[in-house]
C-alpha cells in the first residue's frame, strides 16, 4: 500500500515534468514564427515599447525585413533595461540580430565584445555627420550608425515672459538669463525648470552648462565646472528653480513647464510638437560668456551584435540600411522628433518643416558624450558628475567639495 503511494507520487512528478517539457518545446517552436517562404527570422530589439506592431515604426521595421527577404521579430524594451538584456543575451549566445540602443551605451556594449564593427558587418557610414557618429566610434572603430539625433535647448513661455517684461532675445549669456529669472520671480511666476536627477538624464541636462563654462569631462573639479554647478545651485537657492529639480526626470520637468507657470524649461527636440501646441518658443542654451553652449547628442544607434553565423550579417546590414538611410528614415525621424543624421537627409527634413531650423543648427554644433575617446570612461565620469550635482543641489556639499570628491572617485575607479 505504501509502495503504491510512492509510485503514484513518482508518476505524478514525472508526468508533470513531461508536460512542462512538452509545453516548453511547443511554445518555443510556435514562437519562432518563420513561414516557408522567408529564409528565417531575424530578431530586432529597440527601446520604443510605446510603438507596437501596428504603429508606423513597427510597420516600417516589418517592411524593411520583407525587403531583405526575411521576417523580423521586433521587441520594444524600456531603454534602461536594454543594456542588461543585451549583455545577458550575449552571454548566452542569444544576441538579437539588430540592437537599437541609446548612444552613450554603445561604448559599453562594444567593450563587452558583443558588437561587430563596421568592418565586419559592412555598414556604410560615409554620409553621417561626424559629431553625431562620434558616440559610436571607439578606438578608431565604428560600432553602429545613428537613427537620428536629438539634443537640448531652452523652451520659453512667451506669456510668462511678457508679463514679466522680459524679451527672450535678450537672453544671451548666463548673467542675462539669471537677470531674466529674477524679473520673472518678481512678477510672481516661476523661473526655470530642468532635470537634475541622479541618473544619466541629470548628467545629460547639466552638460550644456558644464561645457558652456569651458569645462571638460576629464577634469570635473575645474573652475568652469564649479561655476556651472554654482549657477544651478544659485537658482535653487534664490527660488528661480524649484526644489523638485533634484528629483525631476526630463518628462517631469516638461510637465512642470506645461503647467504654464514657468518661464523657461530646458528640454529636448522630442518635445517640439508639444511645445508648438502650447505656444512655446525655443532658444539655444546660452554659454557662460555668450553664444550657444555646446550641447550633448541624444538618440539611438543601430548596432549589429556578433552572431555565431557570419552569413547573417549581409541580411542584417540590408535591414539596418533600409531603416537608417532610406527616405523612410526622414519619416521616422519626424515621428520620433529627431534630427536626421546626415546633411542630405537634414535638408530633406528642413524642406518639409522649416520649424526645425533651430534644432538642425543645434545638432550641428552638438557633441557626443562618449566622444573625444572617452568611451567606457564616460559612464564612470557621468555617475560621479550626477552625484556631485545632486549633492550640491540638495545642500549636502558645496559645489567645489562635491566636484572635488567626484574627480577623486573617478580617478580611483579608473585606476583599477
Amino acid at each position, binding site marked *: 500500500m505504501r509502495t503504491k503511494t*510512492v509510485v503514484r507520487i513518482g508518476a505524478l512528478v514525472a508526468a508533470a515534468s513531461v508536460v512542462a517539457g512538452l509545453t516548453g518545446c511547443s511554445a518555443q517552436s510556435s514562437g519562432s514564427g518563420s513561414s516557408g517562404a522567408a529564409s528565417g527570422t531575424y530578431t530586432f530589439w529597440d527601446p520604443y515599447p510605446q510603438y507596437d506592431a501596428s504603429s508606423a515604426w513597427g510597420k516600417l521595421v516589418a517592411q524593411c525585413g520583407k525587403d531583405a527577404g526575411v521576417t523580423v521579430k521586433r521587441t520594444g524594451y524600456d531603454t534602461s533595461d536594454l543594456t542588461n538584456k543585451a549583455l545577458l543575451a550575449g552571454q548566452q549566445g542569444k544576441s538579437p540580430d539588430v540592437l537599437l540602443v541609446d548612444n552613450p551605451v554603445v561604448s559599453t556594449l562594444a567593450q563587452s565584445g558583443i558588437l561587430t564593427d563596421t568592418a565586419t558587418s559592412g555598414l556604410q557610414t560615409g554620409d553621417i555627420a561626424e559629431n553625431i557618429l562620434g558616440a559610436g566610434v571607439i578606438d578608431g572603430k565604428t560600432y553602429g550608425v545613428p537613427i537620428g539625433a536629438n539634443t537640448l535647448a531652452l523652451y520659453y513661455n512667451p506669456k510668462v515672459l511678457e508679463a514679466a517684461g522680459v524679451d527672450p532675445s535678450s537672453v544671451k549669456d548666463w548673467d542675462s538669463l539669471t537677470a531674466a529669472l529674477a524679473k520673472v520671480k518678481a512678477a510672481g511666476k516661476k523661473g526655470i525648470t530642468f532635470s537634475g536627477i541622479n541618473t544619466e538624464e541629470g548628467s545629460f541636462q547639466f552638460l550644456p552648462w558644464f561645457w558652456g563654462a569651458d569645462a571638460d569631462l576629464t577634469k570635473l573639479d575645474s573652475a568652469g565646472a564649479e561655476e556651472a554647478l554654482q549657477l544651478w545651485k544659485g537658482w535653487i537657492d534664490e527660488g528661480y528653480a524649484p526644489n523638485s529639480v533634484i528629483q525631476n526626470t526630463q518628462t517631469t520637468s516638461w510637465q512642470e513647464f506645461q503647467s504654464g507657470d514657468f518661464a523657461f524649461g530646458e528640454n529636448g527636440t522630442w518635445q517640439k510638437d508639444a511645445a508648438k501646441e502650447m505656444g512655446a518658443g525655443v532658444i539655444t542654451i546660452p554659454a557662460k560668456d555668450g553664444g550657444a553652449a555646446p550641447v550633448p547628442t541624444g538618440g539611438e544607434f543601430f548596432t549589429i551584435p556578433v552572431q555565431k553565423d557570419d552569413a547573417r550579417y549581409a541580411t542584417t546590414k540590408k535591414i539596418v540600411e533600409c531603416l537608417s538611410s532610406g527616405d523612410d528614415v526622414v519619416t521616422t525621424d519626424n515621428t520620433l522628433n529627431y534630427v536626421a543624421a546626415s546633411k542630405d537627409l537634414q535638408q530633406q527634413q528642413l524642406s518639409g518643416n522649416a520649424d526645425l531650423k533651430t534644432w538642425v543648427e543645434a545638432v550641428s554644433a552638438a557633441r557626443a558624450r562618449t566622444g573625444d575617446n572617452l568611451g567606457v570612461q564616460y559612464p564612470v565620469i557621468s555617475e560621479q558628475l550626477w552625484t556631485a550635482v545632486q549633492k550640491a543641489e*540638495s545642500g549636502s556639499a558645496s559645489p567645489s567639495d562635491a566636484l572635488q570628491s567626484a574627480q577623486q572617485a573617478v580617478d580611483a575607479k579608473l585606476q583599477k
Partner: protein
Amino acid sequence: MTTDTTSLRPSAARPRTEDTPASVRGRRAHAQRRAQLTAWAFLAPVALYLVLFYAYPLWKNIELSLKHYTVASFVSGNAPFVGLQNFADVFSSATFAPAIWHTAVFVLVSILVQFALGLALAVFFHNSFPLSGLLRALFLVPWLLPLLVSASTWSWMMNSDSGIVNAFLGSVGIGQINWLTSPDWSLFAVLVANIWIGIPFNLVIMYSGLQGIPGELYEAAALDGANGWQRFWRVTFPLLRPVTAITLLLGFVYTLKVFDIIWIMTKGGPSGSSTTLAIWSYQLGFGSLLPDFSSAATVGNVLIVIALVVGLIYARVQRRLEV
C-alpha cells in the same frame, strides 16, 4: 502551549522490543523505511524545485562575487578568481557604513510600525460591526497594486512643489518639506511608503491569528474582572507570540529585500541618504551605464548573510521556546 507534532509516526506507539519476535521487529523497521520514503516522496517536488530555482541563482550569485567580472568577461565567461577581494572592496567602500545604517533603520522601523499598525487594525476589525468585512478587504487593496504604481503614486504625492502632502501641510500652516529631495527627509519618506505597503500583509496574518484564539479564554478573563486593555495584554498578546514571531521574521526577510519603492521614489538619493544594501546592489549592477556585476553580487550576498544570521537566531529562539 505549542504542541510539537512534527515527529508523528504513522505507526503509533512503540511496544517494548524484548516482547517482539525478530520477524515483527524486521517488519517494523521495513515499515519505518517505507514511511520515510513516503514522507520524502511528498517532499520531493519541492526539494527538486528548490534546487533548480533557488540553488542555481544563488550559486551563480556567489560565483559572481568571488570572481572579478567586467562587461567583457561577463559575456565571454573568463573572469579571474579573486577570492574575497570583492568583499574587501565592498567593506572598505565609503558607501558601506551608511548603507548598513540606512538598512537597519529602514528595516527595523518598517517592521515594527507595520506590525503595530497591523495588529491594532486586526484587533479593531476583530469585533464585527457593520461593513467590517468589506472594509477589511478594502484595506488589502494597496497590496495588489504593482509596486511601480504604488511607488510612483507616493512619489507624486510627496513632490516638494506639486505634491498633495505639501499642499495639505501648507493649508494647516506647516512650511514646505522636501520629502524626496532633502537628505534629511528622504529615508523617512520611503519609510512611510513602505509601511503603507506592508500593513495589509500584517493585517491579514494577525487577523487570522486572532481568529485562532478561543472565545472562552476571553470569557474567563472577563469573569475574573479584566478590562479590555488587560484582556489584550494578558490573554491576546501572549497567545499571539508564535504568530508575532513568524510575522516579524518574514517582515524582516521581505523588507531587507525591498528596493522597488526606494528606487522609484529617490533612487537612493539625494547623495545616498536613502541608500540601503539592496539599493546599493542594484545601483552597482544596473544603475549605471557600465554595470559592475561582481560588486552588485557581493553586496547581494552580504544581504543574504544578514538575513541568514537573523533566521538562525529565530530558529534558536523558537527551539528554546518549544522545549
